[in-house]
């Protein structure tokens, strides 16, 4: 896959992103929304890592005799972003648990119904 050149790679990433984004806004099940959010974020991670890729670059661990490395900065940023993502997921899921307990449902439509006109 590394040999795929040009922009093709980015387009795949964009397709993934949009699938995730679609799931977030269109799904009515709350867990599914969270999954969509995760797909959305993971594909942004792929975008970043693609930015960091460099032709013929080795993993950024310094070694004798290796001249070309991948760019380490996007890797660092994405490590941080992955952590932020899982933190958001954990929080979102615990909210879902509480919503289930309070409303008896995790379907958006049911919840809206139970809150009446709101």
């Amino acid at each position: 896959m590394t040999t795929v050149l040009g922009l093709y790679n980015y387009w795949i990433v964009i397709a993934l992103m949009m699938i995730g984004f679609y799931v977030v806004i269109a799904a009515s099940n709350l867990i599914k929304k969270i999954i969509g959010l995760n797909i959305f974020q993971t594909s942004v991670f792929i975008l970043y890592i693609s930015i960091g890729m460099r032709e013929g670059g080795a993993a950024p661990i310094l070694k004798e005799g290796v001249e070309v490395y991948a760019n380490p900065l996007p890797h660092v940023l994405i490590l941080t972003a992955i952590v932020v993502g899982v933190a958001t997921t954990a929080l979102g899921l615990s909210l879902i648990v509480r919503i289930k307990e309070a409303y008896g449902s995790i379907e958006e439509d049911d919840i809206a119904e139970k809150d009446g006109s709101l």
Partner: protein
Amino acid sequence: MNQALSAHLPALQVIVPLLAAPLCFLLRRPSLAWPFAFVVTLCTFAAAIALFNQTADGTVLSYHMGGWEPPWGIEYRIDRLSSLVLLLVSGMAAIAMLYAGASVAEEVPRDRQILFYTAFLLCLAGLLGMTITGDAFNLFVFLEISSLSTYILISFGRDRRALTSAFQYLIMGTIGATMLLIGIGFIYMMTGTLNMADLAERLPPVYETKTVRAAFAFIVIGLSIKLALFPLHIWLPNAYSFAPSVLTVFLAGTATKVALYALIRFVYTIFGGDFAFGQVPLQYILLSMAVLAVFSGSLYAVFQASVKHALAYSSIAQIGYMVIGVGLFTVAGMSAGLLHLFNHAIMKGCLFMAVGCVYLRYHSVSIETFKGLGRTMPWTMAAFVIGGLGLIGMPLTSGFVSKWYLVLAALDHGWGGFVLIATIMGGSLLAVAYVWRIVEAAYFQDPENDENVEAPLSLLVPTWILALATIYFGIDTHLPVNAATGAALDLLGGTQ
């Protein structure tokens, strides 16, 4: 020692509340948590005052985290704009904390109070970190700290709808943050740097590229969600309404303001006004959204059954005023927008505090509850009236000052300016309507019970501090006007 302290002040501004959070968590005694958190917010406020004074003459402070010079390391950068926002955020935090003692004791179960204060400190540190940082990615990290803690704090509300509003905010906020992340990724791709000052230098050669334009769009949209700019505001009314009272006060005074700050930072400092207003039609978009925000927010506010909802919609309208100022792309407009940012935080804080007092007594904030409160809670309602007059923009309140500057700034803009002035006037008339409804219920209808149930002093004192500040800044406009103008000059310098 003193010198060393002031040299590290930028770092301390953020790490004091940040590190205080786990310490607060370790206290394990609810009775200790509040005094501890209160002292921390006071220290933070003191640091912000010191920074404000250091930068008042236009000095720009730069602090290198880890000793690495930018753009390799993370830089903290404080100019007149960031120090003004720091002052506002930490000041509001200190006053909200003063209010929190009695309010949290009533609204949050005892075994979770420690968590509440811990999350509050994290939220404060996140907002301050967003304001002070000179690094685009660091801004994202601190945005997430403040957002996550805000979702938590909202879910502390007693109504079960607090949970769903927190969830809705979590989804929208995360989409916004992810868009910001995409935008930052794009500009990193085109420039190879994340430092804001460095970005500002390296972006102009690639202005023409589609990537940078798209990056700009993603960043503006991502931040507009956090800012609750119309039509991306739908998370705000419920989030404000179902959150615990203290949090509503704090959020209304700070969270959207910091998001606006971040927007200004990206638009004016990083991309530069010439790009944002010259090559991209940002002005039309921002101004038309702002006009719609003022009208729709105010209209909705008139028809709400809950006072908290009415005030929340009014916030959406007020954000519209600020964005009008920011979108004018002149020094006068920018300083009027910033001035309104400052004044509105104080007025809204005062109003939500008064509502919190009512909630404490009646456990409801519907407009029905407010019947006859002028008699049973005279001090609370008097403060409410002062805040309400500020929202309308009566002379002698700070709301008048900022709207006056806004009108003056719009006058320079020909026909478009008249539309804006009409919007400001129309919004103010609608404000009369929604404030009057509440005041009418409080003063011209009979209470169900004549008993005097005035709120305790511990809530009234902070409420009145903000009420008096609303009047004070309406008469002595020296401090905010100078600060806002200075900040606007820093941002727009050459394009005056």
